[in-house]
């Protein structure tokens, strides 16, 4: 039996079908990403698990128990919100201690676990600060510590990194993954960022218009997308003679599909090419190995291995 089961979960807002019969089985300790564009139903799904939105139909079971029969305050879930939603009138330590206080954990035990958890997220020295005195990244860690300290059944992350700048986001991705591996909490991440979903999760649920288009490991979804929507959402694709091929799978050769370089863009670790061919415009990504690359206007030949 799966740890968490979503069974034909459905939510209607008026006539709009926000989530349309979503079924998903999550194993204990797994990191799942709900990925999709805005309005695909991923946040609504998260809110139904959290208990802030009631499903129109379907069931949610946690270790076989009906989760929908349990009040949101009793579900024992840790949630990290997009806006962090820290308590602005409480210090970092008070924020993190709040959940333990609600559980009736004794003061000494509480202080110990707050200190441990702040240490885990690298904020041991910040316990006495107020949220407003901290950077976005630090606030994000406080929110994570506050959710983790109660040893939640499930950790729900609602676009947790989208308010951070690109460099910090990458660092936090690595850290978030390490922390999740350390504590082993079953985690569900909601995101519209395919790189984030692929970097963090064991399995991706690609959602579109309230339905799961594909559920599987990131590498599998990327290499063998079930639908054109999944292929496009997970990365750049070319449609050449009826087959889809990823730009980084195409290389230059002496023979093959002939074309002329329309634009060439240097992006540091790789080159991005747009090439006019008889089969239409083809995007090619080549790693920057330091070699001289074809310039704009050059005639090139493209080859690629058939997709599996």
């Amino acid at each position, binding site marked *: 039996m799966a740890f968490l089961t979503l069974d034909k979960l459905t939510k209607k807002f008026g006539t709009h079908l926000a989530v349309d019969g979503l079924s998903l089985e999550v194993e204990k300790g797994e990191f799942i990403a709900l990925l999709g564009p805005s309005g695909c139903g991923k946040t609504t799904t998260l809110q139904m698990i959290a208990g802030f939105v009631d499903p129109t139909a379907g069931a949610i079971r946690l270790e076989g128990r009906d989760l929908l029969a349990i009040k*949101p*305050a*009793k579900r024992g879930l840790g949630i990290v919100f997009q*806006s962090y*939603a820290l*308590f602005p*009138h409480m210090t970092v330590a008070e924020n993190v201690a709040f959940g333990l206080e*609600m559980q009736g954990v004794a003061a000494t035990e509480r202080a110990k676990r707050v200190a441990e958890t702040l240490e885990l997220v690298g904020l041991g020295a910040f316990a006495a600060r107020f*949220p407003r005195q901290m950077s976005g990244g630090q606030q994000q860690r406080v929110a994570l510590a506050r959710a983790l300290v109660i040893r939640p059944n499930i950790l729900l992350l609602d676009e947790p990194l989208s308010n951070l700048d690109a460099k910090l986001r990458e660092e936090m991705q690595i850290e978030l993954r390490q922390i999740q591996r350390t504590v082993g909490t079953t985690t569900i991440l909601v995101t519209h960022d395919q790189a984030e979903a692929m970097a963090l999760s064991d399995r991706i649920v690609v959602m579109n218009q309230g339905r799961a288009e594909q559920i599987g490991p990131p590498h599998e979804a990327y290499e063998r997308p079930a639908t054109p929507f999944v292929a496009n959402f997970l990365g750049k694709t070319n449609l050449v003679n009826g087959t889809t091929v990823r730009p980084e799978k195409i290389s230059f050769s002496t023979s093959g599909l002939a074309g002329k370089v329309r634009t060439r863009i240097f992006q540091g670790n790789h080159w991005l090419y747009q090439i006019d061919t008889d089969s239409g415009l083809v995007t090619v990504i080549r790693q920057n190995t330091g070699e001289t690359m074809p310039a704009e206007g050059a005639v090139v030949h493209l080859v690629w291995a058939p997709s599996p």
Partner: protein
Amino acid sequence: MSKNGPLALAYHTLFVTFMLAPILVVCWVAFTPEGFLSFPTDNWSLRWFYAIARYPEFVSAFWRSLWLGALSSAIAVAVSVPAALAIARYRFPGREAMTTLFMSPLMIPHIVLGIAFLRFFTQIGLGGTFVGLVLAHIVIVLPFALRLTLASAIGLDRAIEHAAVSLGASEWVVLRRITLPLVLPGLASGWALAFINSFDEVTMTVFIAAPGTETLPVRMFLYIQDNIDPLVTSVSACVIAITVAALVVMDRAYGLEKLLVGRGVDGR
């Protein structure tokens, strides 16, 4: 910060003078030794300040005004909290009507309210009572209390309350530990503004106050109908002094801008 040009500076000077002049004149006249309102005056005297002691009804009216303002504002704020939370969060039938109803005392002339309350209170036996004064003042200060409470309720991030719920807090705990502390600046501002309006009110109160329940402005209003001596100016000067002292204390303790603008704890 950009500097003011000469024209703007002149305008600001004029404006501030215009605002402050009546207050300064009243304070000045309060120090006259004459038996009538004289301005300017050459000699100084505390005669009219000592005179207040001979009119204990001014002192008791002052305390009554203070209690009336404090009490009616506190009740108005207490009523505003659930109303503001409901209006800010939910869409329900009658929401617009409720908002308009709460705001309507702003639009009705106080003299009309005064006549209405006089009639109504006499009918139900509250005529000339302190309870009647409190009830009438709750009605006129409610819009001020609600306006500022509503502003801070609208500015509250629902996710913060959801976070508390997810951590196991019951609805009551969320209200007490999260919601109320976060809207507190709005409540304090709403209370302050309501208090000022209650303390200042004379048009309506003059109808419903009786000898023994007169507020300070009513007492002063009635006094100047029969007398031309400068007693009211020395009373005014005392009130102004107390107000300035209170503002200084509040500014030191809390920040006046925060109080009157209703800014939240984290600057939102």
